[in-house]
């Protein structure tokens, strides 16, 4: 058989369901040796699930995968690596308490004597140094990993995968915590790997990177592979339309007009060592301020500092409703600030408690509450019913059913809803639509626009530029802890290309 006719890797007809909800529908694509395949899609489109299936972390319900034409059926992560598929997770697998060499060789230490389980430390160091050289990482094999910078950790992870001679490497959002020179180095390494015939599967939110580097692009939307096309045949608009799946105007509600400008929160020169630098902005009543930026740009950290969740011991001032304000979560809640966390399971929900208990929590902690205050249960239940009705939370029982029994979208509505019992005046939303389906997204968008129309100030943080563009009055772009520009809504919306260019600041253009 002609080697060129057989793709390096191909999958087809992959289906996957979680708890009865199908998340992947007949997903399939192929990649040739040395090819750079970009995989894009919105949050919750099924990118990670697909990659986890290829990486042997999840098993598909149906479908087949072939590696060099042979059936490939991984049952655990090690199977993937042994077959030659390396996976570099967004969440790096680096043990900070161990040395570079230990991290590199864990699970496959060279032995001193064949029959005895003793490590050959010399061979371990040599092999590590060799692997580090391949990716151009200049650190000592004996250096402890906690001392490495994020970019060095990323390269170490790549070196670890590369040293096992993979035929294909999956990168999941590799640039999220990298600085610009580190990104450039990463791309050089990837180009080098391509030249060696290694197939690259590259998942990223940074469309410009994907467009510039990839040979082909696969677009996933709601669990379907909706497009698989050579990159040169795609325009930016074409990609975005494929990701969103419909003209943007249908998904997003009308942005309510802004009246007289009355600032709710004003931030002046906010600086926090190693996190934020001289960030200034304000949000007016009724305004939606979008915050764009890559992960690690400081956008979530800004939100957490504003809500008193992360310490602020640097300089700069925050004033809220005209008065200077030193935030703590408790003050924020009593002053009617609201915060929707990006991690609803770990920071948002009381998973094993009922919806009423979840929905009443903010109200019970807000202004005029106290430890001694008796809980009026009838009132709480009726409050919960109101909110559930308003947000169209689909649940059979608000009093007995635990929050974890809901679907992702309804869970997110509960986290959102607990802030709506007492009308908030400023709402900080950190990735409000992460991992939920388009229907729930649409409803959350509707609620955001509705609240803004009622005079609520909204700070909307998202890695989906489309979402920001569809909902915001203005978009603030963050990069490396700084506010690097604010874009106003024009008649035709926002200049997305300019925003993206500013967010990825100089790396693309300068390279």
């Amino acid at each position, binding site marked *: 058989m002609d080697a060129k006719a057989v793709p390096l890797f191909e999958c087809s007809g992959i289906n996957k369901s979680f708890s009865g909800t199908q998340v992947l529908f007949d997903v399939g694509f192929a990649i040739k040796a040395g090819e750079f395949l970009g995989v894009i899609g919105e949050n919750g489109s099924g990118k990670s*699930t697909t990659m*986890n299936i290829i990486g042997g972390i999840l098993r598909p319900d149906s479908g087949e995968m072939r590696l060099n034409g042979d059936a490939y059926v991984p049952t655990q992560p090690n199977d993937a690596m042994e077959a030659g598929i390396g996976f570099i997770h967004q969440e790096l697998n680096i043990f900070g308490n161990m040395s570079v060499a230990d991290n590199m060789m864990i699970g496959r230490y060279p032995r001193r004597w064949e029959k005895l389980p003793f490590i050959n430390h010399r061979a371990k160091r040599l092999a590590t140094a060799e692997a580090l050289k391949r990716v151009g990482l200049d650190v000592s094999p004996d250096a402890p990993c906690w001392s490495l910078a994020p970019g060095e950790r990323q390269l170490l992870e790549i070196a670890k995968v590369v040293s096992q001679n993979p035929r294909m490497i999956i990168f999941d959002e590799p640039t999220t915590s990298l600085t610009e020179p580190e990104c450039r180095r990463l791309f050089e390494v990837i180009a080098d790997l391509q030249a060696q015939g290694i197939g690259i599967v590259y998942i990223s939110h940074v469309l410009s990177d994907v467009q510039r580097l990839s040979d082909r692009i696969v677009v996933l939307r709601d669990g379907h592979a909706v497009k698989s096309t050579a990159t040169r045949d795609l325009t930016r608009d074409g990609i975005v339309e494929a990701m969103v799946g419909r003209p943007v105007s249908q998904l997003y509600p009308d942005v309510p007009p802004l009246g007289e400008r009355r600032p709710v929160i004003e931030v002046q020169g906010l600086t926090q060592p190693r996190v934020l630098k001289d960030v200034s902005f304000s949000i007016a009543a009724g305004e939606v301020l979008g915050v764009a930026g890559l992960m690690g740009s400081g956008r979530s950290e800004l939100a957490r500092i504003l809500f008193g969740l992360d310490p602020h011991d640097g300089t700069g001032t925050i004033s809220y409703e005209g008065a200077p304000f030193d935030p703590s979560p408790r003050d924020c809640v*009593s002053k009617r600030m609201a915060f929707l966390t990006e991690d609803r399971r770990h*920071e948002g929900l009381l998973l094993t408690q009922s919806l009423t208990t979840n929905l009443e929590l903010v109200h019970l902690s807000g202004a005029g509450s106290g430890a001694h205050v008796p809980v009026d249960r009838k009132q709480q239940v009726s409050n919960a019913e109101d909110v559930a009705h308003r947000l169209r939370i689909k649940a059979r029982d608000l009093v007995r059913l635990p929050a974890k029994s809901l679907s992702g979208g309804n869970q997110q509505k509960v986290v959102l809803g607990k802030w709506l019992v007492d009308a908030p005046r400023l709402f900080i939303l950190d990735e409000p639509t992460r991992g939920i389906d388009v229907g729930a997204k649409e409803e959350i968008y509707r609620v955001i626009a509705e609240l803004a129309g009622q005079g609520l100030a909204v700070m909307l943080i998202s890695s989906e530029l489309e979402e920001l563009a569809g909902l915001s009055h203005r978009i603030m772009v963050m990069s490396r802890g700084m506010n690097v520009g604010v874009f106003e809504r024009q008649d035709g919306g926002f200049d997305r290309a300019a925003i993206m260019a500013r967010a990825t600041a100089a790396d693309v253009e300068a390279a």
Partner: protein
Amino acid sequence: MVSDTTVPPRKQGYRVLIARLLSEPAFTVIGLLVVYTLAVTAAVPGFLGAGTLSAIFISLLPLLIAVIGQSFVMIVAGIDLSVTATMGLTSVIAGSVMTANGGYLADSALAVPVGIFCFLFFGALVGLFNGLCVAFIRMPPFIVTLATMMFVSGAAVLYSSWHTTSVSIGGLPSGFTRIGYGTIGPIAFALILTVLVVVAADFGLRRTTWGRWLFAIGNNPTAALISGVPVRAVQVSAYTLCGTCAGLSAMIYSARLETGTPVLSQNLLLDIIGSAVIGGVSLFGGRGSVLAAFLGVLLLTVIDKGMQFIGLTLFVVLSVKGAIILLAAVLDALRLRYAEGKS
């Protein structure tokens, strides 16, 4: 994505039953109680008499108070291993104040009120210290309270060695010892005290904002913090109340023994934590009630008394109780796993 990596097992027949039983520890406890009582009665017919039962009931009162205190801490996903040491310390301090044999307030009218105050105050003080360490320095609860336990029990022994040559401080005034077995009208004084604690704790846990905060923190401390719950203050309050309850419990025990002694509650730690866990107060936090504490205490006390009734030796009792708490913890872990399996 992360949320959906486990596929829930399909539940069938017996699994539904197991899940149901696990989710309602009260059924298990009552069931065990009935079976055990019948078994002991079969072996020693006198067990089910009114005398034995009322003796069991009267004897479990101070334990119940201590277990309620422990429950507060366990609901916020903490643990207080220092309670028994705290009980010993408050006992010797109060004893040294009240004793007729050279106490600070010997034969004074203030002796008893000040003594009672000492029980509550020093109990609260140790609890406060634990709470501050856990909430503000974020030290792991079990190890902080372990260190406190060693220190406090050492302090109790040292302190009593300053006041008496024997192990314990005797000569407590009769006005105090009456708390132990005395009655007001037909009702035992200790019973009144316990009922007050039970009612207050139940109201606090189920009807007040404070109670909601405790459960929210035990369930998800970060979510509670973001929702505006004063997490640290509530944690400190839980530990402080636990210490106070320990002091109150020590008061009844000391009155019953008519001595202030550092070894007041040796081996009681197991009973306290064991009762709470058996009753269904979760070691993982976010779950517990006064009823659970009561059922746990009842079961453990009945088992204890039953074994004594049969005539088993102390060390067998110790082993059996160790096994029971282990069993309860296993059930607790299974309960959590079943609860999470449904997500």
